[in-house]
């Protein structure tokens, strides 16, 4: 039986903009009504284009972005927190349990600190160790786990390549022994040959230490390889979520289909049944009415333009928010027939 570690219900994050003196203050609806269950020990993928709200959602779960509305709960074996009201000591405790790995290993590490100090900082700030010896011991243990050469601990980050730096960031995130990690585009800045190495490391750490990952990425093929559950976001909304294999075998939302088919194939003769998307993601300040994807969707009909679809469960833990998923699924031709 699996247990839910993180659960959100109708979670929204809004950022008010500076308005003019008259009229209403414009609001960026970065995340709107997102409901997810992240099971303990899972590798949960979150995908979408830039501006879809995936980073903001990840930050909201860490309380690094304000939660405007809705519920978010963290429940572990010994403790549970309501993330919307977390403060004081509970907040400090939650920070030990939930950590973030950033995208750019060049910007995330202070150039003036040695690798040892970078990794040790969370322990010192949170007061998790009693002596310098104990700190050193924990730093060495986690560094070895992340395959950092122990002799490198005395050096500064500038001496390292992108892959090595990302391993240092990972060690820093793991040193406080968290059990929930948000990895935000953690391999996007790395070269392919290094990316595979870091992905394998993340995956093995997750398995060995029983961690729960929220893995945010725009790269569907990376997500397909490491995640066991995937959620697709578009303009702040969750449009589809399913176990990885199910999602890649039978995507239901037109946006998911388009994303999948836009990945360039390695076979030059296979340009695929490419579902070309016209235009770009609309602004979250002024989202279109109805289904947020209707401005780019070639299956959009009248109802899509007025009513926002709700997440519909179609079995196998697979949810999709589309008015027409059923008829499109029943008609196998629908995915290849173009209408102009």
């Amino acid at each position: 039986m699996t247990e839910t570690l993180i659960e959100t219900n109708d979670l929204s994050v809004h950022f008010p903009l500076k308005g003019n003196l008259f009229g209403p203050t414009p609001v960026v609806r970065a995340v709107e009504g997102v409901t997810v269950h992240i099971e303990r020990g899972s590798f949960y993928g979150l995908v979408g284009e830039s501006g879809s709200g995936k980073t903001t959602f990840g930050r909201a779960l860490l309380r690094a972005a304000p939660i405007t509305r809705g519920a978010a709960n963290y429940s572990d074996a010994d403790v549970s927190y309501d993330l919307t009201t977390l403060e004081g000591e509970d907040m400090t405790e939650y920070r030990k349990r939930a950590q973030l790995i950033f995208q750019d290993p060049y910007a995330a590490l202070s150039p003036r600190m040695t690798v040892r100090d970078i990794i040790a900082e969370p322990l010192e700030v949170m007061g998790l160790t009693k002596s310098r010896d104990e700190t050193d011991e924990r730093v060495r243990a986690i560094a070895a786990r992340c395959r950092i050469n122990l002799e490198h601990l005395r050096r500064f980050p500038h001496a390292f390549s992108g892959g090595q730096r990302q391993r240092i960031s990972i060690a820093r995130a793991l040193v406080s022994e968290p059990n929930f990690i948000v990895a935000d585009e953690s391999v996007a800045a790395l070269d392919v040959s290094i990316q595979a190495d870091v992905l394998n490391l993340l995956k093995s750490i997750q398995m060995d230490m029983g961690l729960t990952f929220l893995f945010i990425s725009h790269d569907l093929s990376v997500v397909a390889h490491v995640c066991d559950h995937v959620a697709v976001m578009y303009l702040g909304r969750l449009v589809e979520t399913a176990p990885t294999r199910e999602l890649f075998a039978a995507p239901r939302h037109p946006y998911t289909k388009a994303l999948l088919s836009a990945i360039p194939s390695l076979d030059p003769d296979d340009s695929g049944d490419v579902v070309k998307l016209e235009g770009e993601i609309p602004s979250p300040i002024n989202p279109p009415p109805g289904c947020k994807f209707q401005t780019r969707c070639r299956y959009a009909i009248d109802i899509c333009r007025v009513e926002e679809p709700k997440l519909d469960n179609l079995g196998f833990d697979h949810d999709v928010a589309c008015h027409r998923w059923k008829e499109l699924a029943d008609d196998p031709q629908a995915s290849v027939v173009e209408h102009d």
Partner: protein
Amino acid sequence: MTKPLISVKDLTIRFNTDEGLVTAVEKVTFDIASGEILGLVGESGSGKSVTAKALMLLNADNAVYDPESSIKLNIDDQEIDVLSLGPKDRKIIRGGAISMIFQEPMASFAPAISIGDQMVEQLLIHSDMTRARATEVSIEMLARVGIPDPAQRFKQYAFEFSGGMRQRAMIAMALSTKPKLLIADEPTTALDVTIQAQVIDLMKDLVSEFHMGILFITHDLGVIAQTVDRMAVMYLGTLIEKGEVRNVLRKPGHPYTQGLMNALPKLDDLDVPLTAIKGDIPSPLDRPAGCVFNTRCPVSLGEDCESRVPVYTNMEDGHEVACHLAENAGTPA
């Protein structure tokens, strides 16, 4: 036989730095014909951009071109020796016969000058158009690359464009002078996949319409597969494999190319484990002797690989590989 649009031969570029002379590119040779897209793949630091910049003499002043290097541009029955161009004659390769588009379109436009004024300015420099005619041509180009409402967009600034629109405007600007060769340095890397697909389509259409040559630089093998005719794989400043894109991707002959393919997550088989290439790219300051890949190569033969630079060998399908293993098995190119 007609001459290729551009031939680069034995291009070797070193940089004079505080730590000594650093070799960035070594003995790089390739041709591009009109109407052809050549893909140049490699990881960061492999020398792709330095090679591209050499074609327009855009490398910094501390770049030293080896005397054996040659870059010949053939336009209208005239051969131009790029490396010997004086400062006054460089207009022809900078925005004239050669144009370049960059990875980050936001950094490529001046923020305080409207997109239209920037497009008109370069037309006034590179052609004898009047300002009115240049405005007309620029708006036509914006329309051609699929920017809606081009006359209105013409007056706007770069920050008012989205990422995809900016890259389209960049392409429109690069093409409005009708270059013979377009250098595209990671043009889709900063874009989302759905927008990337749009830009790739646009570039393919433009090649058939304008019949120019394109040097397409990217680290993404999927983009290469869908875009280019021929490809070359670069590692630490050296082309280690080159040929028709189909042949190289179907039967990669070099252990590095094979390693890249194995490291790539593939969607059609989720059970295949990702295999990383061991180690990191060595610093150009200590370039390995012999084959540049020998420090990370899974099938290194030892001494031979560590001491002698491999020569190009023809694979069965005709594409060329610089590897000792292939050398022992095949015929020299």
